[in-house]
């Protein structure tokens, strides 16, 4: 069991190195990478914004309810900003990414495997790792932090909407307390997390697709595995990174 897990981690790691050897596609075939940023990022944008708004609004309600018990509802801005920047933004975005972009990456690559497209490339002496996998992995890695940033801004807007417009927290207090309490390190923590989640979720998605059994059932299974593994991995990495950042 432990041996299986280790060898699996090893295989994924080797796969990552093999794909990243082709990181040059960013320069040699920028158009392919742009295409994948579009697929992974721009096409997830609407769902990310929608969810960001609702998460922010919930933060506004819950934060207000909690803080007003201590008479500190002015601190709502701080609570919402730190909650979004450090945790909710990166984690929720990564989970949504796994469900939206990750599954489509896996099923796309898996179907290419099942219909011999990857083999055909190999026979044409074109490495599918370079032509298919690398642009998708890199596109996902680039898209994730941008999605997280959009999620955070929309989320803050949502929290402000509820807290200030509905619950009557003072705008100035909301923003000034936030600006007083949020450090650049908090923002950086969120960016580091979102980058790590981007690597993890994109890697899992392309790995599962590339190694899917070349049948309809195999592709379906790989897609499910992508969601499950990405989600668990996201939360695991989140814990490790949080502990590391707090321990500094």
């Amino acid at each position, binding site marked *: 069991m432990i041996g299986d897990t280790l060898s699996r981690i090893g295989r994924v790691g080797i796969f990552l190195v093999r794909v990243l050897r082709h990181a040059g596609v960013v320069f040699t075939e920028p158009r392919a990478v742009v295409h994948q940023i579009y697929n992974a990022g*721009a096409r997830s944008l609407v769902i990310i914004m929608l969810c960001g708004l609702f998460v922010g609004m919930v933060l506004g309600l819950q934060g207000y309810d909690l803080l007003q018990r201590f008479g500190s509802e002015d601190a709502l801005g701080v609570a919402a900003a730190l909650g979004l920047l450090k945790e909710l933004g990166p984690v929720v975005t990564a989970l949504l990414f796994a469900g939206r972009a990750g599954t489509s990456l896996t099923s796309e690559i898996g179907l290419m495997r099942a219909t011999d497209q990857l083999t055909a490339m190999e026979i044409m002496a074109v490495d599918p790792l370079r032509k298919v996998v690398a642009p998708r992995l890199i596109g996902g890695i680039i898209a994730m932090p941008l999605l997280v*940033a959009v999620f955070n801004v929309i989320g803050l807007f949502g929290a402000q909407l509820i807290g200030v417009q509905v619950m009557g927290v003072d705008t100035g207090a909301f923003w000034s*307390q936030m600006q007083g309490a949020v450090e650049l390190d908090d923002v950086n923590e969120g960016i580091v997390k979102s980058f790590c989640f981007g690597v993890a979720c994109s890697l899992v998605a392309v790995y599962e697709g590339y190694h899917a059994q070349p049948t309809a059932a195999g592709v379906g299974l790989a897609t499910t595995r992508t969601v499950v593994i990405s989600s668990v991995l996201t939360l695991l990495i989140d814990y490790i990174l949080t502990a590391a950042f707090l321990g500094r």
Partner: protein
Amino acid sequence: MKPNRSLEIGTGLFVLLGFAALAFLTTQLPGSGMRLGAAQGYKVLAKFDNVGDLKAGSPVSMSGVRIGRVEAIAFDATDYRAEVTLRIEPQFDKIPDDSDASIQTAGLLGGKYVGIGAGGSETFLADGGRIEFTQSAIVLESLVNKFFANFADKGSSTGTAPASDAAPTKE
């Protein structure tokens, strides 16, 4: 791969939006960042002995209604006091020039804000005007110290049992 213009424009928009959001988060949220937004209204200055944790952006209110915000806090090295610049919104232009300003706390743990109490003068504060009567922030620690000091004094004078326990440690 064939060029696809709408796809490229879509990606460009997404990337721009993402970077704009990133820029907003890194510059607007941390207190050390820059501020956006044109200031409205007129400026009033007030000097305080102690501003506590009053921040630029904190509200300025009168009778509990917000009329403006703190624009800047500076330290005046000549008289060792904090000079606070308040920006009052233009519709609140009938504030007597002998009004007083005090730094108050919203709730037990809430943020600080500047409260203005109306004076009786016939002339009003104008841009660049100065509020002369100020009351500094109440620092919670000194309040607590004062409270315990009073408590100890009272205890030693009446000579009750629990206070006599406290008295030797005080003296």
